[in-house]
């Protein structure tokens, strides 16, 4: 661990206008280079937490710091340059007429020269493995291709931190495998929320469990995801790849 | 109710566009600093909504318009008058560009007819009056109904005025009004019901949207004095434009004024008409051919109903066709050549 604090979340509280208390005091620090999986049952506050980190909403109490800069209305522009957020629904992210334009959207907003934009688009599409889709219309893509395009649209901005909300939901097995391999190749600091605990196991070295708006546990992947009781208590299960074999019933070795 | 370019004169179009631009600039100034990340997408969504709802048409026989929902009141209620006006303006522009529904020159007219009277007249003078003492489902219902009907009546009357002042159609004032107003009364009732229903729903589901507008956060407060002074200024501007052009369109304006007031004709004086006459005579090659004038005495010539006129018309179209064929031939050659490479 290079030791540099990238994201610092201290004592966050947030309640929605309709009275629902989504986040009730969460604190943690993420260091550069870490891959952090944030897991929890539905309604535990994962998406709200991501919105707070990216400055889409602001906490009632507590603060978020990105690389030593507190996230406030005034600092949003600088802070967002460091964060790349991939939404759960790729359709929310892809709205231009071609994949090229969607991936170029970010760099163009940075007012980069068009040659530089082109280079970044091609690089980003290469990284996610869909360079051949560069001129396709997004609404004609399959789920996995859309997901890849959405990620590329964030990579082209060269963020320090990649934040992804349920990235494997809705993907077919091969697309999912492709995604996991791509993710393993990224050197960015990563924050991933997911229900796909097996994917989290393969790609993250640290896991934070959210339960009812609070951080119920925070440790290494191996520690957390092998702790059956803890997971059960938080409305989750041990990853499928660690459960008993469905055919012969034997436990996997080493557990 | 969308006015088409073919039915207006440049004078009316220009005047109304200037008026619309003025109101728009004012609205932009008012909301510029209030726009936040919640208001902006909301405006876009409401725009899309109004666009969709305007697709629902009821055709009105003989007036050549179709009646359809305006949506201006709903926009004012949910977004506030300034944002609502701008949203209506953007919806109308998309309709003009993509469907030719409402021309670009008539754009100003349409924006005023559908946007100004709802957002800046009916809304402050009626809706706000009724809901001043606070929101309740009853008040929202009646406020929406009455202001929607009133807004539509003003808008359709404005259409009548604009059409007549342009002088491109023959409908006498009285018949026009008698056709337009009652029909738009009926449409107004329908629109009022829908506006009330949607407003009530939003109030129940997301009351903060309506309350934001009420507390003036999105500038729901417009004073009567301001409204009246704007209307007065608009009348002056329109009057000025129209009288400047009047000399070049003696048939249009004086005809309609003559019809309405039964008075004698105005005198055609200087202005654009004489300017054009001068340019024409200076550049004429054959001085005795038809001058593109709007003077009624030369009807047969420029209507092309004289023999040379018809022949000339045929030749023009023929020439155009030849040019067209030439272009497509050149294009075909180009594509053949590029395919050969």
């Amino acid at each position: 661990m290079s030791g540099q604090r990238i994201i610092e979340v201290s004592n966050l509280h947030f309640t929605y206008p309709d009275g629902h208390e989504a986040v009730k005091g969460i604190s943690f620090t993420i260091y550069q280079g870490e891959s952090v999986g944030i897991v929890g049952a539905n309604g535990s506050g994962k998406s709200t937490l991501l919105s707070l980190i990216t400055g889409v909403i602001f906490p009632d109490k507590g603060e978020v710091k990105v690389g030593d800069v507190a996230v406030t209305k005034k600092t949003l522009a600088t802070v967002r340059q460091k964060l790349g957020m991939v939404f759960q629904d790729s359709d929310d992210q892809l709205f231009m007429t071609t994949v090229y334009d969607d991936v170029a959207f970010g760099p163009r907003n940075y007012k980069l020269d068009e040659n530089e934009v082109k280079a970044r688009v091609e690089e980003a599409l290469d990284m996610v493995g869909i360079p051949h889709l560069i001129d396709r219309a997004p609404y004609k893509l399959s789920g996995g291709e859309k997901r890849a395009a959405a990620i590329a649209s964030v990579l082209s901005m060269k963020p320090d931190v990649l934040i992804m909300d349920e990235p494997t939901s809705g993907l077919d097995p091969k697309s999912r495998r492709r995604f996991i391999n791509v993710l393993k190749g990224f050197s960015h600091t990563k924050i991933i929320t997911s229900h796909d605990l097996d994917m989290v196991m393969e790609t993250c070295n640290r896991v934070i469990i959210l339960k009812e708006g609070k951080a119920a546990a925070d440790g290494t992947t191996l520690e957390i995801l092998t702790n059956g009781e803890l997971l059960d208590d938080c409305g989750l299960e041990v990853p499928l790849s660690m459960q008993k074999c469905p055919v012969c019933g034997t436990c996997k070795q080493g557990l | 109710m969308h006015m088409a370019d073919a039915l207006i004169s440049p004078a009316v179009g220009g005047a109304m566009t200037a008026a619309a631009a003025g109101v728009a600039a004012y609205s932009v100034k008012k909301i510029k600093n209030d726009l936040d990340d919640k208001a902006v997408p909301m405006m876009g969504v409401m725009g899309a909504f109004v666009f969709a709802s305007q697709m629902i048409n009821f055709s009105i026989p003989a007036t050549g318009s179709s009646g359809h929902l305006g949506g201006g009141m709903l926009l004012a209620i949910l977004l506030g008058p300034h944002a609502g006006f701008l949203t209506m303006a953007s919806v109308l522009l998309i309709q003009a560009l993509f469907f030719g529904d409402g021309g670009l020159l008539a754009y100003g007219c349409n924006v005023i007819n559908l946007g100004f009277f709802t957002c800046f007249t009916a809304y402050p003078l009626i809706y706000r009056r009724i809901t001043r003492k606070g929101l309740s489902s009853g008040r929202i219902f009646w406020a929406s109904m009455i202001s929607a009907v009133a807004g539509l009546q003003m808008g359709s009357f404005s259409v009548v005025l604009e059409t007549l002042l342009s002088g491109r159609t023959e409908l006498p004032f009285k018949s026009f009004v008698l056709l337009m107003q009652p029909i738009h009364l009926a449409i107004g009732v329908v629109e009022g019901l829908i506006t009330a229903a949607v407003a009530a729903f939003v109030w129940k589901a997301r009351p903060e949207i309506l309350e934001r507008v009420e507390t003036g956060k999105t500038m729901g407060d417009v004073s009567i004095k301001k409204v009246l002074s704007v209307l007065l200024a608009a009348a002056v501007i329109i009057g000025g434009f129209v009288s400047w052009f009047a000399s070049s369109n003696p048939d249009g304006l004086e005809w309609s004024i003559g019809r309405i007031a039964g008075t004698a004709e105005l005198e055609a004086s200087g202005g654009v008409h004489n300017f054009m006459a001068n340019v024409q005579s200076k550049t004429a090659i054959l001085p005795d051919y038809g001058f593109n004038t709007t003077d009624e005495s030369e009807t047969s010539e420029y209507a092309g109903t004289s023999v040379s006129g018809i022949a000339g018309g045929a030749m023009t179209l023929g020439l155009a066709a030849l040019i067209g064929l030439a272009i497509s031939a050149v294009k075909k050659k180009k594509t053949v050549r590029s395919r050969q490479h």
Partner: protein
Amino acid sequence: MSKIVESMYSIRMLDDLARKDTAIHKIHPAAKLLTTIAYLITVVSFGRYEISGLLPFVLYPMVIILLAELPAAQIFKRLLIIEPLIIGIGILNPLFDPRGWISFASIMIKSGLTVTACLILVSTTGLDKIAQALRTLRVPGVFVLQLILTFRYISLLTEELARMLRAYVMRAPLRKGVRLKDCGSFVGQLLLRTSDRAQRVYDSMKLRGFDGEYHSNGESRIAWRDVLFLISWSLFFIIARIHDIPAFLGLLLERVIG
């Protein structure tokens, strides 16, 4: 309801046409916009009874349609949809005026020309570039942003509408369309769901550095070709407006023959 969905898809068709790569498409959007406005003003300025003077003006749409390889049939189809409205009001002219047929014909020709001009503008430019042109012409960013977002959200709305309709129809197979009683909450739900979705789209734009200004291809410099386009067409419009070309040709013919 399906009519709404249909019209929204037809918008997409026009916008797709705008992505073609012909000489006309490459001309700067501001030049095309100004030329269109000049065209409209000149056409509309013809008096009530003018017909022959209008004829040369078919040249502009024809040339653009050919050079930009636009599907003429599609464009005329749209024209036909609008015409009934104009016919409705114009047809009264003959009733009130002995020369009414002439003014009616004049209106019909004008409406054909003006509507076609708008359609060819949008199919060679597309809304994004038109928005760019508006910014170049100093139209306030607030309004242009509104324009762009409304346009984008129309397709969001269509998708959501289609989705909700499908779900509704599946559970009411004997009914044709949405029941009046359900309309209120149907529409309300549609509004809320679309606005939630719109909020997310907008957030994703903001998170990628969107600051309200659309920075398109960066090729927003005006070239000589664009100026030439605007000036030559405007000159043609002015000449055709002042001099009655068909009458001129007719007279020429007379002189030659007689």
